[in-house]
């Protein structure tokens, strides 16, 4: 016992170092395995608040652009509404039961694009009806999936994450493929598992597929930037440019799938 104590005292620096490193690596391994940042959950409100202060300063400089963008989107939606229902938009009332999805507007309070795994923090949380696994989109395209929720804030795993996989389809041919980040550049993603007979060209549109249980179908994902045909029998790849500009992301919508409980209970029956 005496020897042990002497040993610990003598080598306390190295022992403490190893201990702290082991803790770090365990924390890191844990967070990567579940690819959810659990630790953020407990402190999310504090962290969220600090980020919100930080982003409020920047927000004033971007008000003009944000307003323009939102007005444009408004006009586009009004136009689309009148086409779909072929009626005067001002008198048509959409009731709760008519819609499949509920859109919750939120603001980005923190966003990174330069890590290997990027998360976005938004200023809506549990009390606003945000739940885990809800999808997040911007005016231009899809953004990510909610991974953690605290009272007033939520963290979103962005498409710029090594574990992010989204079911997508090619607009022209309806063929399914899957989207990963895989480029480490915030502008581009990789569409993988494209069937061999499909040849894509620059500018082809990629949308979300209806098979993705996270995103609603037919949302804009991006356009093909470069197509990589591979050897026979292998599946093709394509580099795409994200429709969403992650660098300037400010206003997003969290989508609540109103039929999700029904779908989940149906899925549970088969498992």
């Amino acid at each position, binding site marked *: 016992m005496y020897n042990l104590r002497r040993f610990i005292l003598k080598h306390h*620096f190295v022992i403490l170092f190893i201990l702290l490193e082991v803790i770090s690596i365990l924390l*890191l391994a*844990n967070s990567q395995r579940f690819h959810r940042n659990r630790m953020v959950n407990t402190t999310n409100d504090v962290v969220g608040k600090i980020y919100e202060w*930080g982003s409020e300063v920047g927000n004033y400089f971007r008000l003009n652009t944000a307003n323009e963008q939102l007005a444009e989107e408004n006009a586009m939606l009004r136009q689309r509404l009148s086409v779909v229902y072929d009626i005067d938009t001002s008198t048509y009332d959409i009731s709760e039961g008519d819609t499949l999805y509920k859109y919750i507007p939120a603001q980005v309070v923190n966003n*990174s*694009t330069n890590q290997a795994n990027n998360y976005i923090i938004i200023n809506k949380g549990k009390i606003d009806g945000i739940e885990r696994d809800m999808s997040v989109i911007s005016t231009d395209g899809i953004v990510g999936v909610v991974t953690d929720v605290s009272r007033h804030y939520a963290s979103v795993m962005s498409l710029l994450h090594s574990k992010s996989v989204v079911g997508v389809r090619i607009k022209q041919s309806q063929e399914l493929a899957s989207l990963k980040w895989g480029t480490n550049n915030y502008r581009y993603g990789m569409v993988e598992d494209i069937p061999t007979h499909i040849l894509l060209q620059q500018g082809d549109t990629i949308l979300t597929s209806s098979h993705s249980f996270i995103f609603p179908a037919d949302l804009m994902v991006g356009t093909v930037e470069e197509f990589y045909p591979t050897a026979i029998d292998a599946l093709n790849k394509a580099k795409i440019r994200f429709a969403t500009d992650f660098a300037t992301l400010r206003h997003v919508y969290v989508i609540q799938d109103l039929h999700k409980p029904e779908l989940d209970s149906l899925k549970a029956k088969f498992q």
Partner: protein
Amino acid sequence: MNKTALQIIRFVVLVLLQVLVINHIRLGGYVHPYIYLIFIMLLPFSTPKWQLLVLGFALGLSVDLFTGTPGLHAGATTLMAFCRPSIIKLISGNQKFENIPEPNIGQLGGIWFLRYALLMVLIHHFALFFLESFSIRLIGQVLLRILLSVPVSTFLIMMILYIFKSEKKRE
């Protein structure tokens, strides 16, 4: 000012500067500068070794809270704190710091501090980017990140320290 209070303020300011400002710098996707390391670099020479480790761990974990990467910065910063005594010994040889309370540019000179900062940043970034990718597959990218980020971090750190050095003289 009280020494401990100064250290606490330094800690908080550097973490906030890192997560609210520096983390939003985008230079081509490979350059990720980190300046919060200044806190560990400027700790007094007389700091007990175990305190270096605990402070390094706490500092890294604080940054991790904001970036949502538990253990990543904590691991890298702890390693850097572990290496600090050896680095100081390596670059100063038999030089004694009897009248110098903590590493600073004014008393030790820019060249000494540049070597010090460069080595510390190199160790930190090496650990950080390898831990981050968590695989040997992306080794090319990781090395490129290290190669590009180390000079930028070192440059920013030296710049910040020079700014504060002149501030002190004016007071």
